[in-house]
């Protein structure tokens, strides 16, 4: 089920909302959030609900283990066993074919003719996200950062919370623990308007901006080999804004939905195209993922505590795995490696970079990010090299990749202003106080989104594939 679908907006959300607030106790609300989470997830494919239930149960039991046992051996068992289980499921569903094909490729390079099977595996939507939810819970429980919950439904409500289930943000238990515990006393009206405002802004980002870019960009990438240099830059630039407004829109909707149910979901995007350097980018882009990679991978690897070269190695490893997290493809790994290299280079040449003016740094960082997204968008290594070659070696071809370039340019101008100059949803709501007149632009924006959704249909979010 998609946030930008009529079945969600007209049926699922109103029913979930009304019943949730009709229930009086926290326990009843946990159960209701769990049920709705599974309905939301099962709407796509009910079979994979079992997978999520299994992963939830294993992680919950690990948490109970941390509460019960104090000896190091048993606690380590409670740490390792569920993490191995979760990662095994993720590896099977997401990376099995990739591993087999990579192995076969290596065998072919070595001159060994290998007949490899192709598993007919359907990737469960959102598995990367809820696996991270459960792993962060287990690790935080092991470290003593959180006190694992004894209430199974509190935990299952956290894992299957529909607002963050399939495409994040990767909310750590500790970030909404307090709100979950107080769910029975939550005030319905306190954040209602803020929630609606966040949700509508997210819907505008997705439906009016990201999907407009998608209408131009997707056909262009479908025939990338025929594009000229200008056409390729236009396509990649369009994708740069499409992916940002798609995911940022989704995240803002998730935050808004959280508010509607008395849960404060943290910020996931902080205008990343305003970033001035590679480190700044990752403090602003998919914040929940980058902070998880930092806390659960980079720092345990040693972070920057063991000298310059170890730091570079840790940065590269973290970003390579971050790339791989996005999908089972070499293009994602290369994209991760590219950003690892940028981070390492920035670490080495920070004084020189920081001496440049802020505008130059922002523009240069944006262009570096755009180049990375050409690889990220490519569906194969061959496509990535073709896109990069066309971008940097003047090539004749389809100069204009679409009809209706005016619409593209207008949307581009709006997107550039909004993402590089204007306020993001959180900045807009900082110090925000509701005024009755605010309802009018929100109603107009909602009406516009509904009209476009009714005409063009509901398109899935890009991050659903991860």
């Amino acid at each position: 089920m998609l946030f930008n679908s009529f079945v969600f907006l007209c049926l699922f959300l109103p029913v979930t909302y009304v019943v949730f607030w009709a229930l009086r106790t926290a326990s009843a609300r946990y159960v209701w959030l769990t049920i709705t989470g599974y309905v939301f997830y099962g709407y796509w494919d009910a079979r994979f609900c079992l997978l999520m239930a299994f992963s939830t149960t294993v992680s919950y039991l690990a948490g109970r283990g941390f509460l019960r046992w104090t000896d190091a051996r048993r606690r380590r068992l409670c740490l390792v066993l569920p993490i191995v289980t979760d990662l095994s499921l993720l590896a099977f569903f997401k990376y099995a074919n990739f591993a087999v094909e990579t192995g076969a490729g290596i065998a072919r390079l070595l001159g060994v003719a290998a007949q490899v099977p192709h598993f007919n595996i359907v990737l469960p939507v959102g598995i990367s996200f809820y696996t991270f939810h459960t792993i962060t819970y287990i690790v935080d429980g092991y470290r003593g950062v959180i006190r694992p919950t004894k209430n199974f439904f509190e935990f299952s409500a956290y894992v299957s919370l529909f607002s963050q289930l399939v495409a994040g943000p990767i909310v750590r238990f500790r970030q909404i623990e307090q709100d979950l515990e107080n769910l029975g006393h939550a005030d319905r009206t306190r954040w209602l308007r803020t929630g609606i405002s966040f949700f509508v802004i997210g819907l505008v980002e997705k439906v009016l901006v990201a999907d407009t870019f998608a209408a131009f960009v997707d056909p262009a990438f479908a025939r990338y080999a025929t594009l000229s240099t200008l056409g390729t830059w236009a396509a990649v630039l369009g994708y740069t804004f499409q992916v940002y407004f798609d995911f940022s829109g989704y995240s803002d909707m998730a935050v808004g939905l959280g508010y509607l149910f008395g849960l404060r979901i943290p910020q996931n995007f902080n205008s990343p195209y305003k970033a001035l350097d590679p480190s700044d980018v990752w403090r602003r882009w998919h914040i929940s993922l980058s902070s998880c990679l930092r806390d659960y991978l980079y720092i345990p690897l040693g972070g920057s505590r063991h000298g310059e070269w170890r730091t570079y190695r840790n940065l590269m490893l973290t970003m390579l795995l971050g790339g791989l997290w996005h999908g089972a493809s070499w293009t994602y790994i290369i994209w991760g490696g590219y950003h690892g290299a940028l981070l390492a280079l920035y670490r080495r040449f920070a004084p020189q970079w920081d001496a440049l003016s802020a505008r130059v740094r922002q523009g240069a960082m944006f262009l570096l990010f755009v180049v990375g997204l050409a690889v990220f968008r490519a569906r194969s290594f061959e496509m990535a090299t073709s896109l990069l070659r066309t971008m940097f070696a003047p090539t004749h071809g389809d100069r204009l990749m679409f009809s209706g370039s005016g619409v593209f340019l207008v949307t581009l101008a709006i997107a550039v202003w909004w993402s590089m100059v204007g306020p993001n949803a959180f900045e807009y709501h900082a110090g925000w106080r509701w005024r009755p007149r605010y309802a009018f632009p929100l109603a107009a924006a909602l009406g516009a989104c509904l009209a476009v959704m009714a005409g063009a249909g509901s398109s899935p979010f890009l991050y659903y594939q991860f």
Partner: protein
Amino acid sequence: MTTVYTGPGRKHPATVASSGGRSRSAGLAGKSGLMDDIPRWSRGVRRAAYWTAVGATCLLAAEATARLDDRVRQGIPLLHVPDPARDLVLRDSLGPRGRPNGRYKKWRLNRFGFRSADMTLVPAPGCTRIAVLGASETLGAYEADGQEYPSQLEDSLRGSGCVEVVNAAIAGISLRRLTHLWNTWVARFQPSVVLVYPSPTLYLSENPPADPPAPRSAMEDDPPWWTPRLLERAHEVLHYPALIQRRRVARAVARAVAGRDSSWLFRSVPADRLNQYVADLDSLVSAIRARGATPVLVTHAMRFTVPPDPSDADVLNSWRQFTPRATTDAILAFEEAAADATRMLGARRGVLVVDAASALSGHREYFGDFVHFTNRGAGVMAGLIADRLRHAVLRSSQASPAESADAVQ
């Protein structure tokens, strides 16, 4: 540098003093403050006015966006009211025909009013032009643009020399009007082969198909520009659950049947309607031959087997909405009888018959509803026709268009 907003404080909403979040809207809601001294009824009126204004803003913005979206995506003028019956069909002194350069959603007609690529009036020398006459099944409904069976037929015949397929279909057109369309318009384009894919159930409507009415002024029944486009969009996204849809269909049929004498219903194949179907088809064959072209008849295919699979009951009942005068049994029986009659007519008149009814009927995956094709169904249909045309018609028509009719016989 921007400031990272970390949420409105980490204290739980319930524990935060409410004054910070209280707003003038709360006053509007009559809970505190500014409007305490205003009578309760007045507050109620103001609140209703406020929410009405908000709702109206939402609807107006939606309507404006729908029009802008249509303008950008489909080139529909902002003040136009899209309607397939007007945007795709021109009713002038020649009778109903495809509107030149007509556009409606995915349907795009060329400058002669055909759902085909741009073309010349006369086929290029050495090229075979195939005209396809039919109704909505031929015009295309569920198929993606370019996947309707005439388009796929042209693709299938690419290897058979220069072949051009002209889709001259008009939604809801009966055989009698197809004959008129052929005589007054399509024959001008000199196709050497004419495929006819009739819709038999049009002969089960309340009144039998008649000749086209006199042309109407385009202005007289144009809806006003403010007719909301939102309604059409809402209708498209509204998918009723099966139970409700079943009731809606039952109600629609009951309304159409209410007050009628029991003899009004067709419970079996009405002989007069079948005879008219055959006579009209016969006339069309004669008209096509009179212009020197080769007719090819295609029997009508449907989703159902006879007797129908019980799981198809809902779709079958939905079909009945269009011909409430006939029971579902009569519809299926008429389809079979029309297919038989088409085969017999083909044999009697020496016309090639492509038996789509035998090849496609009963394959649900080929149909988006009762009779309209999916991409796959259109592909199978195109393949079936292409095979028969290649063997029976194209070789002879390319060699000598005048002799092609003899080749079929």
